[in-house]
């Protein structure tokens, strides 16, 4: 008997149809409901469960009460095992995290959650490391790679995983700052990773690179960077899975979403602030290793603000090593990387071309704009 843990964020997506560009925060949700928004995530969760009905004899759906999963499961034709308690109509991110805790403690085979980037962040903050989960897209913002392309595909993919026909890969959880987004600026941050089932589309769908190719590209980049490293120089490692591969090659543990510093193969500062970086660059030669974050191709100024304009100026453009898997650059369609450090003069300094390390002894001459 397989068990699937269903979590529905009943408020996911309600801001979208009424033009609020997101649904985070109680105030936005209240305004959305005032504007007549109808929660769609329950229905989307139902759609995603329908492909799983074929497994119903061997599948138990474990879920939270009413709008957090029970309703959708019953609607789809399942008789779920309901655990936990909620205050209907007043659920919050905390309820999502509680549900993740309980279901992972129960040892379900897969946590199946409906929501958007905010929900993925909530799941990410509560889930044990490498615990299998999969997102049903129901939110306004879907930047995270943890969601299937539509609810039906989510159900099919979950079914394949439960039958051993799909394997897990590590996928990034990204979110934009909604206040900035509403103000017309896109600001993506990496919040962590989740382990999701995947099955590449038949033949080469390069949007979904395989686990093997992703990991090998990052390893090849790390091998190149390690060869370049010099004794006595501090290397400031920006956030991301590609920079983490460099840390792994040094057998150093990296803060995935933060900035760490290594020197002579040793970690000398973890999860640093801009202030710490400024102090550090006073005392020793330093180089910066960064990778573009997220789908917009920001190189500096989004998600790695610790490496601020002062730090960049002090380290110097020639001491910046940009690394990126070619998959990531392809996803940008080879369009330029963007910098927005907050200081125009530093942005201008960074603009132009960088030799981006894309593999072992492989570079792409890549344009940076501001």
């Amino acid at each position, binding site marked *: 008997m397989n068990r699937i843990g269903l979590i529905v964020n009943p408020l996911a997506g309600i801001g979208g149809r009424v033009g609020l560009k997101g649904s985070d925060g109680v105030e936005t949700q209240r305004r959305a409901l005032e504007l007549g928004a109808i929660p769609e995530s329950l229905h989307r969760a139902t759609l995603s469960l329908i492909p799983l009905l074929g497994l119903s004899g061997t599948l138990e759906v474990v879920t939270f009460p009413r709008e957090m999963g029970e309703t959708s499961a019953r609607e789809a034709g399942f008789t779920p095992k309901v655990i936990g308690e909620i205050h209907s109509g007043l659920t919050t991110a905390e309820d999502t995290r509680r549900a993740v805790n309980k279901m992972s403690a129960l040892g379900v085979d897969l946590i199946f959650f409906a929501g958007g980037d905010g929900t993925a962040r909530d799941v990410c903050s509560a889930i044990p490391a490498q615990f299998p989960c999969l997102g049903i897209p129901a939110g306004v913002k879907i930047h995270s790679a943890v969601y299937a*392309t*539509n609810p039906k595909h989510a159900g099919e993919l979950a079914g394949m995983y439960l039958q051993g026909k799909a*394997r897990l890969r590590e996928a990034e959880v990204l979110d934009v700052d909604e206040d900035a987004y509403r103000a017309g600026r896109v600001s993506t941050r990496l919040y962590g990773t989740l382990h999701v089932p995947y*099955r*590449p*589309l*038949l*033949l*080469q*769908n*390069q949007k979904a690179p*395989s686990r*093997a*190719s992703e990991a090998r590209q990052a390893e090849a980049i790390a091998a190149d960077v390690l060869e370049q490293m010099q004794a006595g120089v501090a290397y400031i490692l920006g956030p991301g899975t590609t920079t983490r591969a460099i840390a792994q090659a040094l057998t150093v543990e990296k803060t995935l979403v933060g900035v760490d510093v290594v020197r002579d193969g040793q970690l000398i500062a973890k999860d640093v602030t801009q202030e710490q970086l400024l102090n550090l660059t006073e005392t020793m030669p330093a180089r910066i290793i960064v990778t573009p974050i997220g789908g917009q191709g920001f190189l500096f100024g989004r998600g790695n603000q610790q490496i601020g304009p002062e730090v960049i100026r002090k380290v110097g453009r020639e001491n910046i090593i940009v690394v990126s898997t*070619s998959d990531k*650059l*392809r996803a940008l*369609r*080879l369009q330029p990387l963007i910098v927005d450090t907050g200081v125009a003069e530093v942005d201008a300094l960074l603009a*132009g*071309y960088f*030799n981006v390390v*894309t593999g072992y*002894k*492989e*570079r*792409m*001459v*890549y*344009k940076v704009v501001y």
Partner: protein
Amino acid sequence: MTHPKPKKLGAPKAVAPKPALRRFHQARWDEPVIFELTSEGQRGVLPPEPEAAVVQAAGDVFDNLPASLKRKTAPALPEMSQVHVLRHYMRLSQENLGVDLNIDVGQGTCTMKYSPKVNDQLARSHKLSELHPLQPVSTVQGILEVMFRLEEMLKEISGMDRVTLQPGAGSAAIYANIAMIRAFHESRGEGQKRDEVITSSFSHPSNAAAAKVAGYKIITLPPDADGYPDFEALKTAVSERTAALLITNPEDTGIFNPRIVEFVDLVHRAGGLCSYDQANANGLLGITRAREAGFDVCHFNLHKTFSTPHGCGGPASGACCVKKEMAPFLPIPTIEFDGTSYYLDFNRPQSVGKIRPWYGVTGNMLKAYAWIMSLGADGLREVAEIAVLNNNYLLNKVLEIRGASAPYAKGKRRIEQVRYSWEGLTNDTGVHSEEIGFRAADFGTHYWTSHHPFVVPEPMTLEPTESYSREDLDEYITILKHIANEAYTSPEVVHTAPHNSTVHKIDQESFDDPDAWAVTWRAYKRKLKKYR
């Protein structure tokens, strides 16, 4: 006496719409691997016992073998009778889609032209197939003359001064070129210093791969907003460390870079050399040449442009063409003519050595020679003109299909192929490009995945060559139009395609995982458990 009136024939009962959608079904069986068909004790050939006199003269041949060459156990080869082997391959051949069976314009970049069967017959003749590479050259003057004359023709087609036919494929030819480029720099004491090779995103990917194998650091130029390789990027990439620029033109998008001379000049000024990838020269024959663009070396794939043919229909064969400054570094042996006879010259001290055993893929050389001779200089130019015309006809027709587009270089004509995008259709319907390629198989054609580096979203790369008639192209277009229409009206049909194929879907997760690759039956058996 009255004769019955001749019956009026009238119109045929059903008039197929022109062009009609072909109803197609692949073979229904999934032929096993030949190793799975083995039946212990069966034999295809029973060689007769040697005659006593032979045994006596030869002695025990196994005794003369060094111990290290003797197997301890017999090889685990399939044991089958002749007729079972024949049936196996006949069945396999019926699971195919290919240029002899369908309209094969969907393998863009591959130049799937029709290769006249008479040329195959020539190459299969015992006069060629029974030659041995160790025969004295006095006994192989005929094929040496063919090779020499083919080289002369390729010199004219490329504008270069010397040619080698030795490489066994396009990538081997690129490797030969990069090896000569390295030898050139070494001869000037710059071998160590020049360790970088520049190429472009839409160039044939073998350029980066072959240069990497040769030990070079690879710098790739992305396309600019119009799809041309970014000239500004080249300016920052070129330095005293540049060994060479390896570039394709037109690139795999079908867009011709009109500034190519500027690219070449810039690299030359920095002391680098320039290698023109003309693997696919089908749109250029008789129109433009590597020499006029200023290149130092170039290469052709005889199995693409010169019809020998490509794919499973025959082995590959590459030809490198070089300027005289590069000639000392050509692979050995070169084929020379002393006024009375042809000979092989091994005495070339600056040569890069051998790129492959012996002298190249001679069967392909003969086929390419025959193909060029049957067309003549005007015929070659006509090939290019028709290939370009066919391509631009197809381009106009594809752009009429809802959801299809041709990114980059808006309003410009393309040369011999186009990289299209179904992004619009995917956004509208959720149907992906590869699903359209699968669905096409239900109508007896297909397109595949030659879209490196997968920058164009939902790509489709079509190359009609000169071989297809307007009716052929119209049929192909009708199929694409029909599938696009299905995507909008009944997408499930496309999602679940192909419906008429032997194997409907394959799991390709393991394709880029070396741990899963099995190049021998033994490795397959060993690794299979992990992947089932």
